[in-house]
C-alpha cells in the first residue's frame, strides 16, 4: 500500500510533465492537422534555456532569492521558447501550409534533427548538471516504508494544475480561444469571418511552446541534469500520450500524459524497468485497437 502511494505520487509528477508537452502536440494537431515532431526537441531546448537563464541570474547577477529566480526563469523560458517556436512555425511550417500532409511532417522531422544538433553544437555533447537546489522532503507515513513527497513534486503538480486551469479558461472563454476553435473547425470560413488565421496559428504555437518550456523547467528541477538528446524520448512519450487521450482533445492530452506517467512508474516498480517503455507503447497499441480515436477523441466522420 505504501509502495502504491509512493508510486502514485511519482507517477503523477512524471505524468504532469508529459501532459504539459502533450498539450503542445495536441493543440498544433487540432489547428493545422500536423504532427509537430520537433516539439520534443523544443522541450529539450527550453530546458537548456532555463538552465542558462538560471545561471545568469545566480552567477552573474548574484540574485539571492530562489523563488524570485524561479519565477524569472519560468517567465523568460516561456517567452524565449515561444519565440523559438514562432520562428520555427514561420520558417519551416507556414510555407507548407495547405500543401499535402506528409510535407510538413518531414519538415518537422528535419527541424527536430536540426534542433537537437544545434544544441549539441552550441552547448556541447556532454550532460549538463544543474546547480544543487535546496529540497524539502515531507514524510507522509512513519512506518517501515517511508512515503515521501518532495517539495519539488508538489511544485510540479501544483504548477501544472494552475497552468492547466488558466489555459482551459483561455481556450474556453476568451476571444482568442474562440478564434482557435473556429480555425480548428474550418480555417477558410474563420478567415472569411474576420479571424486572422495566421496570427491565431502563431499564437497556438507560442502557447504550446510556453507549456513545453514549463515542462522543461520542471525537468531540470526534477532530474537535475539535461543533455541535447533528452528531447526525443519525452517527445515520443508525450506524443503517445496525446494520441492515447485522443489527439486534438485538450483534456485527453492531460489524461493521456498522466496515464503514460503512471503506467511507466508502476511498471518499473512492480515488474522491471527494462520494459517500461514497451509497456507504455503496448498499452497505446491495445487502447487504439479497441478505441481507434483515443480515449477522449471524437471519431473521424468521413463524408463521401
Amino acid at each position, binding site marked *: 500500500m505504501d509502495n502504491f502511494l509512493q508510486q502514485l505520487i511519482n507517477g503523477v509528477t512524471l505524468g504532469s510533465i508529459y501532459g504539459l508537452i502533450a498539450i503542445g502536440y495536441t493543440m498544433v*494537431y487540432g489547428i493545422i492537422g500536423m504532427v509537430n*515532431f520537433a516539439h520534443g526537441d523544443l522541450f529539450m531546448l527550453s530546458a*537548456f*534555456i532555463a538552465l*542558462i537563464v538560471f*545561471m*545568469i541570474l545566480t*552567477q*552573474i547577477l548574484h540574485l539571492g532569492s530562489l523563488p524570485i529566480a524561479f519565477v524569472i526563469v519560468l517567465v523568460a523560458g516561456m517567452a*524565449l521558447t515561444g*519565440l523559438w517556436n514562432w*520562428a520555427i512555425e514561420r*520558417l*519551416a511550417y507556414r*510555407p*507548407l501550409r495547405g*500543401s*499535402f*500532409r*506528409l*510535407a510538413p511532417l*518531414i*519538415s518537422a*522531422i*528535419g*527541424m527536430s*534533427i*536540426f*534542433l537537437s*544538433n*544545434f*544544441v*549539441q*553544437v*552550441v*552547448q*556541447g555533447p556532454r550532460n*549538463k548538471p*544543474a*546547480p544543487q537546489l535546496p529540497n524539502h522532503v515531507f514524510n507522509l507515513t512513519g512506518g517501515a516504508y517511508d512515503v515521501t513527497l518532495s517539495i519539488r513534486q508538489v511544485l510540479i503538480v501544483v504548477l501544472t494544475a494552475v497552468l492547466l486551469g488558466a489555459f482551459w479558461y483561455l481556450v474556453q472563454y476568451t476571444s482568442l480561444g474562440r478564434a482557435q476553435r473556429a480555425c480548428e473547425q474550418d480555417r477558410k470560413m474563420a478567415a472569411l469571418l474576420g479571424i486572422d488565421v495566421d496570427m491565431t496559428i502563431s499564437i497556438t504555437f507560442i502557447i504550446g511552446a510556453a507549456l513545453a518550456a514549463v515542462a522543461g523547467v520542471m525537468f531540470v528541477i526534477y532530474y537535475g541534469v539535461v543533455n541535447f538528446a533528452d528531447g*526525443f524520448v519525452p517527445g*515520443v512519450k508525450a506524443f*503517445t500520450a496525446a*494520441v492515447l487521450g485522443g*489527439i486534438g482533445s485538450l483534456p485527453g492530452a492531460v489524461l493521456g500524459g498522466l496515464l503514460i506517467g503512471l503506467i511507466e512508474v508502476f511498471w518499473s516498480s512492480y515488474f522491471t524497468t*527494462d520494459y517500461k*517503455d*514497451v509497456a507504455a*507503447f*503496448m498499452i*497505446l*497499441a491495445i487502447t*487504439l*485497437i479497441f478505441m*481507434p*480515436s*483515443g480515449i477522449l477523441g471524437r471519431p*473521424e466522420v*468521413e463524408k*463521401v
Partner: protein
Amino acid sequence: MTAAPQSTPVAKSGEATASPFVPALRNAVAAALVAFGLSFPIISYHAESNINNELVLIGRWPLSFGIAAIVFLFVLFRQVSPPDWRVWFDRVGAVAAGGMGGALAESAAEGEGVAPPSPARARFSQWFGPFALGVVILFPFIMLGLLGPSGSLKWINNYGVQIMIYVMLGWGLNIVVGLAGLLDLGYVAFYAVGAYSYALLSTTFGLSFWICLPLAGVLAAMWGVILGFPVLRLRGDYLAIVTLAFGEIIRLVLVNWVDFTNGGAGISGIPHVTFFGIPFNDDDNGFAAIFHLPYTPIYRTMFLFYLILALALLTNFVTLRLRRLPIGRAWEALREDEIACRSLGINTTNTKLTAFALGAMFGGFAGSFFSVRQGFVSPESFTFMESATILAIVVLGGMGSQLGVAIAAAVMIGAPELMRELDWMKQIFGADFDPTQYRMLLFGAAMVVMMIWKPRGLVSTRSPSIFLKESKAVSGDLVKEGHG
C-alpha cells in the same frame, strides 16, 4: 536565420519611389531583434562543466551580435534590392542560414505549378533512368579505374553500397507509403528483423547467407503481417504512431532481451559474404587464388555492391510488375479513395496486409544484407532516426516515383557522407574547427529546405499505371497521399 518579413506592398509594386528604406529598415531591425532573441541565452552563453562538475558560464556575446548583424544586413539588402534579385537573395539566404530560409516559399511556388512536361523534358526523363542504371552498374569499375584498388574501396563502400541500401529500403517503403498510402513510421523494425534473422541463424545454426536471405524476408514479412493486422482499423496519424510504437518496441526488445540478442552489445562475428561458397580471403581456396587474381579486399566490396544492386533492382522490378497486377491497382485505388474501394468490393484488409508484408519483406532482405556486410549488428542501428530518414527519402523522392526515390537516397545519404571530406576547412577556420559536427545539423536543415522547395518531391510527374490509349505523365499533385 530569422523570418524574412514579407516585403510591404509599397516595396513590392516598385512604383512608390518615396522611400522604400524606412519600411525595409523597420523590417530589418525587427528581424535582427528576433535573431538576437533566439540566440540570446543558448548562443550568448556556453555552459560548461568545470573540474568540480559544476556548470560555469562562458560568455559568447560577439557571436550573438554577429548573427543579429548578419540577419539585419541580409534582410535590409533583400528589401531594397530590385524584385528580380530577391529570388536570389532568398536562395542564398536558404543556404547561408544553414538552410532555414523560410522566404523560399516564393521559389517553392515555381515548383508547385507543374506545367505539362515539354517533349524535351519527357525525352530526358525517358532516357535518364536507363542512363543512370548504366552508370550505377559501371560505378565500381569507374572508381577502380580512377583511384586504384585501395583508393576506390572507400568510395564503393561508403557511397555505393551505403546509398544502394537506402535505395532498396526506400523502394520497399515506397510500396507501403507511396503505393498503398499507409503512413509507416516504424519501417526500421523490419530492417532489424532481417538483420537479426541472418545474424542469429548464421551464428547459431551456421546457415549460409543464401539460405538466410529468403528466410529473413519471410520472417520480416511475417512480422509485417503480425504488426499490420491489429492496426488496420487505424487511420492517418493513429496508424503512424502505432507503427512508430512497434518500431520502438522491437528495438527495445532487442536491447533488453539479452539472452536472445546479446542486448545492446550486439552480435559480432557474423560470417562474411562468400562468392556462392568461395570466401573472399587470401587463402588458397579463396576467391583471389581460385581466379588467379592478386588478393585485395576490393573484390568483396564489389561483390557486395552488385549484390545489393541486384536486390534493389529486384525490389524495383517486383514493384513495377505488381503495379500492373490487380493487387497493385488495388493498392493505388486504396490510396486514392478507401471508401470507393470498399464499395467496389475490394478486400481492404488483405490489400493493406499484402502491402505491409511485401514492404516488410524487402526491408528484411535489406536487413540481412546489412548484417552480412557489417559482420556486426546492434540495436543502435535501428533507431527511429533510420525510419525517419527512409520516410524522408520516399517523400522527398516523390511518393510512388521509383526514380525519384533513388535520386533522393543518393542525395540524402551521399551528401552527409561527403561532409566527412571537409577536412580542408580546418585550414581556413583553424584546427579546432570540426566540420563533421555540423553534418547532422545541415542534414536536418536540408530536409526542411528541400520540403519547402519541393513539397511534392523531386520528381513531380508520375506515369500512370493504367491508361486508355497512350501513357501520359501526370502531375504529382493529382496523386493522393492516402489516409492509412
